């Protein structure tokens, strides 16, 4: 087969099984776009801004586990992808970004739409590759998919100079079947000796807790995690990225941990004597002040990336390996070691946890205005807890994490690591294209949604009937909350003035817009939105502006110093803390 560089790009994607590419054309990629035009196996999805393209590919990848693919032009096309690439990188999402580049002979001459793509993206990718001849295109794409999807996944950029895709230069083409990179050997199974030691430590624990993160979702290890947790009957807490790795409404689940985690999860972390960390990385939003973190605990840490282990918190038993095989081996060890647990200690531990639980740290009071929390509860009901939920960044994100009980992995898609406003809508479009038979909703805020609002147009073109749940509090709520708490209510620049009429805006893009203000109308509006199966519905829900996210660990505080909402704190005082 003789192909040009442009055709090789498309053929390589086809051979990788790619169904959708999110992109935006421009001068340096025109040869590639011409090759797209001549086939219909790989569908090109035209976004409205390259940032939206990267988030859409990212949402596609998070919803499926398959790598998201992006194609953009050189210069501004590339710089517009930076936020999306960094977002995927922080959350270890597999993604391949193909970027056009000016022709090789003019690289370095400040040519029109030239930028140093390799240099700009270097710190925010897992790897990047500059193609230097048409022969290198196929192998570079093969390598990119391999690196993006193995080990700890992440984005890989392939920079393709225009002259390498010249339609007049055809070469015999064979897509490589396999790839072997001598300098890249990601970890596979864990060390059996370590796994055995860990299993023993785990079964001997008196106050154990399992702390699971996004690595369980990305590593497709939810099944194994569930078996282990149920076998041991230990409490499990998930990070913001790990929600859904273990069913959120299960008895053994004690909710999310960290800055806005539940009281029971954070106090259990503080009091634990053994912590099994599975595919999480002791992020500062999870640990609070490191000096006060888990003072009594021995730590077992499973991670595919050795550099995550003992980076923030020293692991007593490090296990480097893919989460899935490590948990399988751990289950085998558990059978051999036996569950010789201290039954009395476990009973006392659960009693303690259930007492913390009874404080109900997420409780809130309803009133004559809609509370953001009740919107998520209503959303949960209307979707029977089964929708794919994307979110933006802010209070609405925390409420979605707290109140929607995610029961399966890949159901909750949010930018946890970078915290990127603007992620929600394009990610929802990507997820909907990947999962056409599922219900997809985007929980957002009136500030976040404006950051990639242009993608409403993409949603119309590709008929992705996403439901947008806008918690409209007329504030950058999360910023306002910090200003209320730590800046003496000086609300500097956190009030969003001159908001557009979002209902009319949705309509002008060709979608359905609905505004809700009265709590009594909330459920009906939600039902109505989800009954419209074939159209995007923008629910603009006017909520109480003064609500804060609780409970909360403030900066520099430990898990045991978390603050309850003012009303819950009274109950807690009355019952008196009974720490183990």
């Amino acid at each position, binding site marked *: 087969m003789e192909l040009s560089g442009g055709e090789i790009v498309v053929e390589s994607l086809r051979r990788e099984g790619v169904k959708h590419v999110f992109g935006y054309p421009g001068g340096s990629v025109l040869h590639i776009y011409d090759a797209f035009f001549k086939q219909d196996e790989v569908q090109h999805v035209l976004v409205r801004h390259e940032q939206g393209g990267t988030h859409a590919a990212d949402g596609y990848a998070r919803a499926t586990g398959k790598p998201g693919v992006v194609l953009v032009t050189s210069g501004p096309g590339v710089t517009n992808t930076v936020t999306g690439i960094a977002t995927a990188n922080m959350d270890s999402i597999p993604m391949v970004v193909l970027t056009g580049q000016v022709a090789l002979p003019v690289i370095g001459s400040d040519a029109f739409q030239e930028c140093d793509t390799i240099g700009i993206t*270097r*710190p925010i990718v897992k790897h*990047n590759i*500059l193609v230097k001849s048409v022969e290198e295109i196929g192998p570079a794409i093969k390598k990119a998919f391999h690196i993006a999807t193995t080990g700890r996944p992440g984005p890989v950029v392939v920079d393709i100079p225009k002259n390498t895709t010249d339609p007049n230069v055809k070469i015999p083409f064979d897509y490589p079947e396999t790839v072997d990179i*001598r*300098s890249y050997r990601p970890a596979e199974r864990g060390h059996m000796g370590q796994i055995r030691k860990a299993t023993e430590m785990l079964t001997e624990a008196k106050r154990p807790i399992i702390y699971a993160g996004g690595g369980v979702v990305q590593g497709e290890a939810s099944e194994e995690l569930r078996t282990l947790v149920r076998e041991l009957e230990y409490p499990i807490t998930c990070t913001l990225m790990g929600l859904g790795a273990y069913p959120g409404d299960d008895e053994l689940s004690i909710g999310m941990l960290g800055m806005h985690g539940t009281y029971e999860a954070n106090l259990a972390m503080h009091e634990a004597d053994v912590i099994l960390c599975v595919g999480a990385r002791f992020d500062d939003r999870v640990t609070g002040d490191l000096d006060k973190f888990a003072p009594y605990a021995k730590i077992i840490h499973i991670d595919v*990336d*050795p*550099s995550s282990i003992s980076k923030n918190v*020293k692991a007593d038993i490090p296990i480097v390996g893919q989460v899935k095989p490590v948990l399988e081996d751990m289950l085998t060890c558990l059978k051999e070691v036996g569950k010789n647990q201290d039954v009395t200690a476990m009973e006392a531990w659960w009693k303690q946890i259930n007492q913390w639980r009874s404080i109900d740290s997420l409780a809130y009071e309803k009133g004559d205005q809609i509370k953001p929390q009740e919107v998520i509860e209503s959303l949960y009901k209307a979707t029977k807890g089964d929708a794919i939920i994307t979110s933006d960044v802010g209070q609405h994100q925390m409420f979605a994490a707290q109140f929607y009980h995610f029961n399966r992995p890949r159901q909750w898609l949010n930018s946890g690591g970078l915290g990127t406003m603007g992620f929600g809508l394009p990610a929802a479009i990507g997820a909907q294209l990947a999962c056409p038979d599922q219900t997809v909703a985007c929980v957002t805020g009136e500030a976040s949604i404006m950051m990639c609002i242009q993608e409403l147009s993409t949603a119309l073109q590709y008929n992705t009937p996403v439901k947008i749940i806008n918690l409209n509090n007329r504030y950058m709520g999360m910023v306002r909350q910090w200003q209320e708490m730590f800046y003496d209510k000086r609300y500097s620049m956190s009030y969003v003035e001159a908001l557009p009429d979002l209902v009319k805006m949705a309509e002008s893009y060709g979608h359905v817009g609905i505004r809700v203000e009265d709590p009594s109308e909330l459920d009906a509006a939600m039902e109505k939105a989800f009954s419209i199966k074939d159209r995007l519905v923008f629910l603009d829900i006017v909520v109480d502006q003064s609500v804060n996210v609780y409970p909360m660990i403030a900066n520099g505080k430990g898990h045991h110093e978390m603050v309850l909402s003012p009303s819950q704190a009274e109950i807690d005082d009355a019952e008196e803390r009974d720490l183990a």
Partner: protein
Amino acid sequence: MRHIISVLVENEFGALARIAGLFSARGYNIESLNVAPTQDGSMSRMTIVTSGTDEIIEQITKQLNKLVDVIKLTDLTESSHIEREVMLVKINAAGAERRDEVKRLTDIFRGKVLDVTDTTFTVEVTGAAEKLDAFVDAIGYEGLIEVVRSGPMGIGRGEKPLQL
């Protein structure tokens, strides 16, 4: 503590930038870095001199290993090794007495005079970093016109090489 890390990397476009970028992005110290191809032209060997607590050095080696272009690395300071650095110095050497003194110091440090003018000597000294420091001290600050140092490079003692 000071550590000397030897790194085998793919001799590829951008590998050096990736490594230098890693040090600046994560705020690690870098005292010196040198790089040149090995006997196998597809690989380069880099010697990085850095310092930090044990935890930081552990992170540095892990983060370096994580880079796709890094083939293998070793922290030479963990075992017995040899360290060498080359220094080229242009020294003020006007007047017979001064010329004799510079010549004598060069001999003591087993250096070589590479170039001579009426008023200067250009000298090469090779050795561990402290030896070069000592030579510079002996010459005295006013005597120095130009100093060029390669940064240390190192190799482990014994039979075992750093290889694929």
